[in-house]
C-alpha cells in the first residue's frame, strides 16, 4: 500500500517536471510533429481494422438478436451507432492503444533510461522529463480524439457494409437508425474520453519507462506495468466520466 502511494506521489512529481517551462518551444513543436506520426498516424491502420470488424460484428449480432416483427429494423443502425460512439471507439480503442502505444512509450523511455540516454540529456542541462514526455502527451491528446472520430465512422461504415452485403437489413433502415434519437453531445463525450484516455496512456506509460532500472528485463516489466496500469486507470476514468457527463 505504501508503495502504491509512493508511486502516485512520484507520478505527480514527474508530471510537475513534464509541465515545467520548456527550454525552447521551437524544438518541442518539431518533436510533437514527430510523435504525432509515430504514435498517432501509425495507429490508424490498427484502429481502422478493429473498428470496421467490430462495427460489422455489432450490426450482425443486432440483426440476429433483434429478429422480431415487433422491433423495427432501424434499431440495428441505432444500436451500432450507440455502441461505437459511447463505448467502443473511445474506451475499447483506448484499451487497444494502451497495448500498442503504451508499451511502445514505456519501452522506448525505459531503454533510454538504462542506456544512460536520459542521464546524457540531464548532463546537458535538459529537463529530460519535459523534453521526452511532453511532446508525446501533446501529440496523443491532440490526435486520439481524431482517432476516436475516425473509429466511429469506420465502425458505422463496417456495420453498413455487412448490412448491405448480407441483405439481413435494408441499407435505408440502417441509415435511418443512425440518425434516430441522435444526441450530438454524445460525440463530445466520446472526444473528451479520447483525450482523457490519451493523457492516461501516455503519462502512465512514460512514468513506468522513466523510472525503469537495471537491464532489458526491467524494460519488459516496465512495459507490462504500463499496459496494465493504463488499462485499469482507463476503466476507472470511464466510469467517472460516464457518471459526470451522463449521455
Amino acid at each position, binding site marked *: 500500500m505504501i508503495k502504491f502511494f509512493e508511486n502516485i506521489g512520484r507520478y505527480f512529481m514527474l508530471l510537475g517536471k513534464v509541465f515545467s517551462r520548456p*527550454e*525552447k518551444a521551437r*524544438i518541442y513543436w518539431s518533436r510533437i510533429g514527430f510523435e504525432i506520426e509515430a504514435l498517432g498516424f501509425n495507429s490508424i491502420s490498427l484502429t481502422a481494422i478493429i473498428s470496421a470488424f467490430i462495427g460489422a460484428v455489432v450490426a450482425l449480432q443486432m440483426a440476429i438478436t433483434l429478429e422480431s416483427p415487433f422491433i423495427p429494423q432501424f434499431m440495428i443502425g441505432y444500436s451500432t451507432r450507440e455502441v461505437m460512439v459511447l463505448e467502443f471507439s473511445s474506451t475499447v480503442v483506448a484499451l487497444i492503444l494502451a497495448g500498442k502505444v503504451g508499451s511502445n512509450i514505456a519501452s522506448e523511455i525505459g*531503454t*533510454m533510461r538504462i*542506456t*544512460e*540516454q536520459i*542521464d*546524457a540529456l*540531464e*548532463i*546537458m*542541462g*535538459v529537463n529530460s522529463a519535459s523534453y521526452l514526455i511532453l511532446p508525446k502527451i501533446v501529440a496523443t491528446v491532440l490526435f486520439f480524439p481524431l482517432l476516436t472520430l475516425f473509429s466511429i465512422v469506420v465502425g458505422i461504415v463496417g456495420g453498413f457494409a455487412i448490412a448491405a452485403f448480407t441483405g439481413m437489413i435494408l441499407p435505408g433502415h440502417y441509415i435511418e437508425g443512425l440518425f434516430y434519437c441522435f444526441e450530438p453531445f454524445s460525440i463530445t463525450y466520446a472526444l473528451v474520453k479520447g483525450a482523457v484516455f490519451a493523457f492516461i496512456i501516455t503519462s502512465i506509460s512514460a512514468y513506468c519507462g522513466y523510472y525503469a532500472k537495471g537491464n532489458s528485463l526491467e524494460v519488459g516489466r516496465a512495459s507490462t506495468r504500463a499496459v496494465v496500469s493504463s488499462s485499469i486507470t482507463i476503466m476507472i476514468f470511464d466510469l467517472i466520466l460516464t457518471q459526470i457527463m451522463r449521455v
Partner: protein
Amino acid sequence: MIRADHISKTFDGRTVLDDISVEFDTGKTNLIIGRSGSGKTVLLKSLVGLHDVDSGKIFYDDVCYTDLDFRQRKDIRKDIGMIFQGGALLDSSTVRQNVRLPLDLFTEMTEGEKRDRVDFCLERVRLVGADHLYPSELSGGMVKRVAIARAIVLNPRYLFCDEPNSGLDPQTSVVIDNLIQDITKEFNITTIINTHDMNSVMEIGEKIVYIHEGHKWWEGSKDDILLAENPELNDFVFASAMAKRAKSVAKL
C-alpha cells in the same frame, strides 16, 4: 579546476564513497582508476551531479556546485561535456542530430552556424561522412567518437568520460585516448576520465587518483605509479604478468 571536499555517498546503507577529497587540474587529463565496484563511477556521477552526495562539497572553480539547485546548475551544466560508457547517443536521431542537439537547445546560432559547428566537431573526431547514420549503424569506436563530438560541441570547460575505452580494441582505444588528450590540451579543459584500462593510464595519465573500497587510496602521475609502494595499488596496476615485468624494468 574541479574540487571535491570530503564527499561521502551511501546507497541503501552501503557506503560507496567515504570522505573523498581530491582536486582535478585544468588542462590535464585526470584519471580515476580502481577495481570494478570500487566507487569510481559513483564518484564521477557525483562530481557531475547525477548523484547527490550525502555530505561534503563539490566546487567547479570557485562555485560550490552542491549548493545549487537544478535550475541554478544549468549554467555550469552547459559547460560540461560527458562521454558515457555506452555512448548514450539518442537512438532515434542521426549522428548529425545527436551532435547538433545541444546547439538547438542552448544557442541562438543560425542554421549555417550550427551546420559549420557540427561539421567542425565531426571533422575533429574524424567522422566526416557518417553524419546521416543512426547509432545502431555505427561501430563501437564510432559511437565513442560521436559521443566526444557531442560532448565538445558547446566548447565545454569540463569533460567527463566514463570508461571511454570499454569494449574497444587496443588500437581504437589509443585513438580515443589521444583524441581526448588532444582536445583537453587544445581547449584547455578539465578532463576527468574514469577507467581501469592500464594502457590509458600509462598513455595519458597526467594526474591519477586510485579509488579503493570507496576511499581515495593514492594520488600521483603516470611516472609515480611505476614506483609506488602502495600494495593495493600495485595489486591493481600490476595485475598482469606483462605489467609486472614492466615494473621490474622500471626499478632497474
